[in-house]
């Protein structure tokens, strides 16, 4: 078992608000790790530490470390642009940019100065196929992405993230705004993607966590309660709180 990321004694503060308390957990390579827990427990906050999204806002502070390839990515001199190329993120609501379907997927590639149009075309098609949305959009690549359905938009956003070939993708309740069929497609896609990338997914949907993830971490008021293989978490957890939470008696 390889750890791609190691979260060690991580603290996080929104100004005076101590939102993460001494969180330690590994993220295994080529696996899906689910983050679960009641609303406000810090799942999003933890997820956004991985790609340093908190740096966009003033007064946010990290403590402890997240180690990747032997390096603490929370260091002040970390290059955030290349870090975010390695750790992609998919948000709760689809966020298509106000441009064509093609330009959306090509966005990250163009940022990396890929200009050659045949290379762009090939990579865009590959990403859209990988995100299981190619068949639905191949005839409307030049139309505005806002015209796609919510589920298609979310898969487009996943394709946009995949196009830059990240090593990790962070999903923040990425299926919670979607219908069951789109959700199913994205779940299948996540499992399929494990070959190439490592996935960390925040979810409120216990069945989803049980179905797709290899590891599950339960959080409660900013702290990690329990981390283990998903099967263990759902069948014989060590903590009573975990058992109550996954069976829906708590939270």
């Amino acid at each position, binding site marked *: 078992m390889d750890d791609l990321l190691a979260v060690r004694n991580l603290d996080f503060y929104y100004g005076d608000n101590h939102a993460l308390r001494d969180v330690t957990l590994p993220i295994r390579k080529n696996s899906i790790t689910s983050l679960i827990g009641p609303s406000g427990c810090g799942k999003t906050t933890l997820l956004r530490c991985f790609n340093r*999204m908190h740096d966009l806002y003033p007064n946010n502070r990290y403590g402890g470390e997240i180690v990747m390839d032997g390096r603490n990515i929370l260091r002040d001199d970390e290059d955030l*642009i290349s870090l*975010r190329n390695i750790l992609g993120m998919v948000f709760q609501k689809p966020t298509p*940019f106000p441009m064509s379907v093609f330009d959306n997927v090509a966005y990250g590639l163009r940022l990396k100065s890929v200009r050659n149009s045949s290379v762009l075309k090939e990579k865009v098609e590959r990403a859209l196929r990988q995100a299981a949305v190619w068949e639905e959009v191949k005839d409307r690549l030049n139309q505005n992405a806002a015209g796609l359905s919510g589920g298609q938009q979310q898969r487009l956003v996943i394709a*946009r993230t995949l196009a830059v070939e990240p090593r990790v993708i962070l999903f923040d309740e990425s299926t919670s705004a979607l219908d069951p069929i789109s959700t199913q497609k994205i779940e299948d896609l996540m499992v399929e993607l494990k070959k190439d990338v490592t996935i960390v997914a925040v979810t409120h949907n216990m069945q989803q966590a049980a179905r797709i993830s290899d590891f599950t971490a339960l959080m409660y008021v900013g702290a990690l309660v329990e981390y283990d293989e998903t099967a263990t978490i759902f069948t014989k957890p060590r903590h009573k709180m975990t058992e109550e939470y996954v069976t829906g008696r708590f939270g």
Partner: protein
Amino acid sequence: MSGLGRRKIVNIVAMSLASACAAAGLFLLLVILYDVLVEGAGSLRLRLFTQDPAPPNIPGAGGLRGAFLGQGLLTLAASVVGVPVGVLGGTFLAEYGRHYKICRLISALSDMAVSIPSIVIGTFVYAVLVKPMGGFNGWAGAAALAVIILPVVLRTTEEMMTMVPWSLREAAFALGAPYCKVITSVVWRSAMSGIFTGVLLAVARVAGETAPLLFTSFNSNFFQLGLNRATPSLTVSIYQYAASPYETWVETAWAAAFVVTFLVLLLNVAGRIFIKIKKVG
């Protein structure tokens, strides 16, 4: 029951008052437009666009070609300065400077600047540009118009960009985009139709201004390509011709008023149609 009746009556009274006020405003606007249309269209001749001004009371002669050109040049020069500075300034306020108190102050001051009477801007520019430069000139006129355009474009840009949700910026940041790229490729694109409309309305507004030009570009009877000397403009010409006792000049003023009103109306309508198309498409 009686409470409901009371609320119904209050509702009817409020609605009637509001409707009456709207009707009064609309009525005045229609009267003005009707007057300009009837008098102006009747006096409209091709020579308005092709001839130089003629002395009064020579029927069938005289036009305002210099004023048309001058108006165009003044508006163009003002826009070339005012629009980019306004857009970039507004961008700074909405993005890089959003956490600074000083930027909030600048926004508030710009809001005030939008409502400064334009004659005050004219006298201000007279003091800082016309006097030191030794006489009326078109550049001063353009500067006065630019001062009017700037806060309008600045605030519209800032507001339109602030309305773009942060989630969209975050999505671009999450792909490793630097801030300047996020602004140019995502935020501007989302806010584009709003910013463009603001620019159009600001330009339309200065195209119809007289007061700031009276003390700056003033007027001239000579046809000239350039802004180095006193520069004729339609609005100032209308002002002077309409106030004259000569019938031929008053007629010319009506015709010019018709053309200016029509152009400004066209710009406004174009702006609004543009928003509609953008919203639907």
